[in-house]
Each structure stands twice: as structure tokens, then as C-alpha cells.
């Protein structure tokens, strides 16, 4: 299967998918050697990477998100321009860049919160159809001050249900919230006030909100501060788990280059536009990276 033309390549994926559909049930029971999968995904070029994954991981790899020529202008100022991204499910793509490089703007454009040029397509390669992209979002911080009378249940239920949280606590919703929180070992926090949570606890709660229901694309805006080392380890551990067990793509805006090196599948360095992209090692040792972060690299790690 060394097709050069795009069309034949696509056909082969489809053929393979037919076969996979037949075997899907038995396939899911297989034990998966995840490390092996990652190595192969990293090594493989885009389309083949997707195929590999189907055979091994919970992420089917047959969904892809293609962003073409994303640009944002505020008045006459160009914040970001010509950003092209191609993301597959089961992959963690990390966006890095200095302050003000347009990372948050890119996230907001993907969320559809600000007007942008270009298109975002979500394609199912099994039948080559376009479908609506469900985006989950983990924000950097919340508008919650000390003393805000919002419990974790109140917050969670507000995002996932219509049972008015100011009137009563619905047993059904409560159970659902607890289950979802348990995914990230946060079920004990359900009756705590949101403003009393530690940075790491809040992030786990937000992660479970973003994953209810499981989105196609998870956007994570990593907090700059307020989370200790253990919290960070747990956070990346959770992300690994998500990647391994669910069918979704992830984009993380990160400020912690050490973790990037360890966990990312693909790294994108932006400064208004993409100036370097590739495997973590490749990007972190590039001259573009050196130019952006300079000697401060050592301070980061």
C-alpha cells in the first residue's frame, strides 16, 4: 500500500475500514500496547498514522480536523494569520509560543467565539463526510471570587443540564455529575464550593465538564500558575488516559516545556503564524524555537 495519489490512498482507507467494521467487536476486546501505538503514530505520516491507530487504540483515527488559513484581525491589527492545522483523533497537539503570540486568540477562533478567516472542517474519513465538530474546552481560569456560592455540582449541572440549579438538586443529574467527576478522580469534590478548590482540583473538574459528553476535539488552555508539580503530573496523566481511552483529538496550549517534551505527539510553535511544527524534539531543538525563547529555555525547564 504505497499509493502516491490521494484518491487511491483514500480508497485503501475505506477498504480497510470495511474490513474493520466487520471485526470491530472482537477488536475492542484486544489488549492494546499503547506505547507501541504512539511510536508508530509519531513515526508515520498523517494518513497512514490514522490507519495504524485504528488497529490498536480506542481512538479510531479516522476523524480528522482540518483548519485552513485561519486568521484573526482586530480592526487593522493582525493577531494571527495563515494558520493551517491538520489534526487526528488520538493525538495530543501542543501549541507553544511567547506571551502575546496569539495562542489564546487561536483557541477562541476555534471555539467560534471571535470572527476569523479561513475554515475549520471536521471530516469522517470512513465515508468522507463532513460533520459538526463537537468541541470541549478547558479554560485557563473561571470568573469565581472568594465567597462565590457556587458548588461544583452547581457549576457542572449548569453546563450539562437544564434542571435549574437555583431551585433544587436533581438526583439524576447529581448521579451523572458524580460519575463524570469520577473519570478524573474528582467525585469527592462535588459538594465543595468552586472557589475553595485548589488549582489542580479545579482543573480536574473542568476537564470532566469538557468531556461531558466526550467531544471530538478537546481544547485545553493550561493555567500559567496555581498548580503544583503533583497537580501537573496528575493533569498530564489524565490527558494520557483520555487519549488512550476515548476517540478524540486534543490541542493544548502549554507553558510548561518540560511536560511538552514528555507528552506531546506534535508541537506547534506560533508567533502570529506557525513558525515551526513537528515532533517535540525537532521543534524544541530548532533555531526558530531558540529565537522565540532564547536562553530562557533553561529557566523554563
Amino acid at each position: 500500500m504505497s499509493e502516491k495519489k490521494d484518491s487511491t490512498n483514500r480508497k485503501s482507507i475505506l477498504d480497510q475500514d470495511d474490513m474493520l467494521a466487520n471485526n470491530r467487536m472482537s477488536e475492542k476486546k484486544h489488549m492494546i500496547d499503547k506505547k507501541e501505538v504512539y511510536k508508530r503514530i509519531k513515526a508515520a505520516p498523517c494518513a497512514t498514522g490514522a490507519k495504524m491507530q485504528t488497529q490498536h487504540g480506542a481512538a479510531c483515527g479516522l476523524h480528522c480536523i482540518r483548519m485552513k488559513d485561519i486568521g484573526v484581525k482586530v480592526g487593522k491589527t493582525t493577531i494571527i494569520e495563515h494558520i493551517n492545522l491538520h489534526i487526528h483523533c488520538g493525538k495530543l497537539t501542543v501549541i507553544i509560543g511567547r506571551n502575546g503570540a496569539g495562542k489564546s486568540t487561536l483557541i477562541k477562533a476555534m471555539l467560534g467565539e471571535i470572527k476569523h478567516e479561513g475554515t475549520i472542517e471536521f471530516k469522517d474519513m470512513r465515508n468522507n463526510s463532513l460533520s459538526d465538530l463537537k468541541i470541549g474546552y478547558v479554560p485557563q481560569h473561571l470568573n469565581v471570587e472568594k465567597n462565590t456560592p457556587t458548588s461544583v455540582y452547581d457549576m457542572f449541572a449548569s453546563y450539562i443540564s437544564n434542571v435549574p440549579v437555583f431551585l433544587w438538586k436533581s438526583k439524576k443529574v447529581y448521579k451523572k455529575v458524580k460519575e463524570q467527576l469520577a473519570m478524573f478522580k474528582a467525585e469527592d469534590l462535588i459538594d465543595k464550593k468552586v472557589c475553595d478548590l485548589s488549582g489542580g482540583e479545579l482543573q480536574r473538574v473542568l476537564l470532566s465538564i469538557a468531556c461531558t459528553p466526550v467531544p471530538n476535539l478537546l481544547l485545553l488552555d493550561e493555567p500559567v500558575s496555581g498548580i503544583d508539580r503533583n497537580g501537573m503530573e496528575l493533569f498530564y496523566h489524565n490527558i494520557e488516559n483520555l487519549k488512550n481511552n476515548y476517540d478524540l483529538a486534543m490541542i493544548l496550549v502549554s507553558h510548561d516545556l518540560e511536560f511538552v517534551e514528555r507528552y506531546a505527539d506534535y508541537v506547534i510553535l506560533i508567533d502570529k503564524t506557525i513558525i515551526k511544527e513537528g515532533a517535540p524534539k525537532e521543534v524544541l531543538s530548532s533555531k526558530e524555537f531558540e529565537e522565540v525563547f532564547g536562553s530562557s529555555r533553561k529557566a523554563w525547564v
Partner: protein
Amino acid sequence: MDTIYRLMEAVLPYEFMQYNFMKNALIAVLIITPLFGILGTMIVNNKMAFFSDALGHSAFTGMAIGILLGISDTNLSMIVFAVVFALLLNRIKLKNSVSTDTIISVFSSLSTATGLVILSRGGNFSKYSALLVGDILSISPKEILFLLLIFVVTLLFWGLCFNKLHAMSLNSSLAKSKGVPIVLLDNIFVVLIALIVMLSIKWVGILIINALLILPAAAARNIAADMREYHLFSVIIAVFSGIAGLILSYYLSLATGPTIVMIAAVIFFLTFLIRTFVNE
């Protein structure tokens, strides 16, 4: 209305209840205060205290425009102007997040000044000074009906959309990712505030209407642990201050609105003390 009056006399056989204006005032208080208690929770959550204050001040211009146009019922012009004003402020707020308070302040001052200039033509302002402190004792059954209507609308809106409003107030991007129509809901919310403020401003008064919106929720916030307690305490505090203020002002011959606000303020400080005490 007569049936309600007779019922009130039977249930509350007190001296102050023998006057119809007191009965009307009591009914009005029983509608306005829970309404303010409920809305206040979200206004405080969203840090919109300044916004609602500006909205109150726009009543001057609304009334002035009504008088200039020769409309007999200035309520109408006040409501229309307040709704436009609220939507405009909201748009500005969404556009640039940098110095919202300055912009609100500019518009608030401008609308106050414009209103005062027009209303004081020919040195006639004293005619309108009742608008400043309000007079709940002059409310008529027809106006009570309007209040009741907006009360029902608010309850419906709250029941259907509170979760979404709450989600937005925590983080609007997150709400957006969950499919909440944030701009639409935000606009409906400020229009609702505009309607309620305008319909009750003649009875409560421009100078203190904001206090009545903010104080019960701010007090409830000090002692509430979740959204249910927050709303419950806020409504209880608002209704209690309203009834106590009405009765107290009757016996001591005080202006009703300010008396209500003073009681609410005392409760705020009490809850503040409770909070400090509990935290230590």
C-alpha cells in the same frame, strides 16, 4: 382587587392595613422585592452593579424624552430608552473588555445630565424630584398588574435559562463551547433588568434602586454555600427588608424606599459579621 383587599384585611388586622394605598404598597413590595432578590444574584455574580446603576440613571433621559415628545405616559418612553440603553451598553461591553467601567460611567453621566437639562427647563425640576426617592404609596392597581406580569416573565426566564446564565457568568467561552447562545441570552438578561428597573423606579426611586438590587444578593452571598441557598437567602432578605421597611416607614413617617434599603444594609453588615466570625 376588592376581594384581595378584604382578604388582606382579614389576614392582617392591623391599623396600617385599613388604607387601600398601604394594601397596594404591600402587594407591590411583595412583588418587587423577591424579583430584585432573584435578579440581584446574577447581577452580583456578573459584577454588573455599576451597569444596573447606570441603567437606573437612564430613567432621567427616558422621562425627559417622553415629556419632549408629549407622551402622556412617560413610562413608555422610559422603558424604550432603557432597553435601547441597556443593549447599547451591552454591545460596548462585548466589543472592548478593557475599560468597561469608564464607558459605562460616561454614558451614565451623559444620560443623567441630558435628562436633568431637559427636565429642569424653566426651573421646573422640583416637579420630578419624586423620581429621585420614589413613592411606593402612590402605586395603583393597574401598575401592580404590570409588575405582576414582569414577575411572571422573570420567573419563567429564570426557570428556563438560569443554568445557561450561570454557565456564562462562570466562563463564557466554556458556555459557548457547550452551545449556549451567549450574546442572545446576555441581551435578554439586560433587557429584563431594564424592564424591571423602569417599572419599579417610580416606586423605589432612582437614587436607591440599585441598592435594592444589590444588597440582598450581596448579603446572601456572605452566608450561602450553593446556588439554592444563595437564591433562598437573597429572596428572604429582600422580602423581609421590604415588609419591615414599609411598616416602619408608615409608623415613623419616613420615605419607604430608603427605609427598606437601610434595613437591607443592616442585614448585609450582619451577614458580613457572621461570615468573618465563621471563617475565624
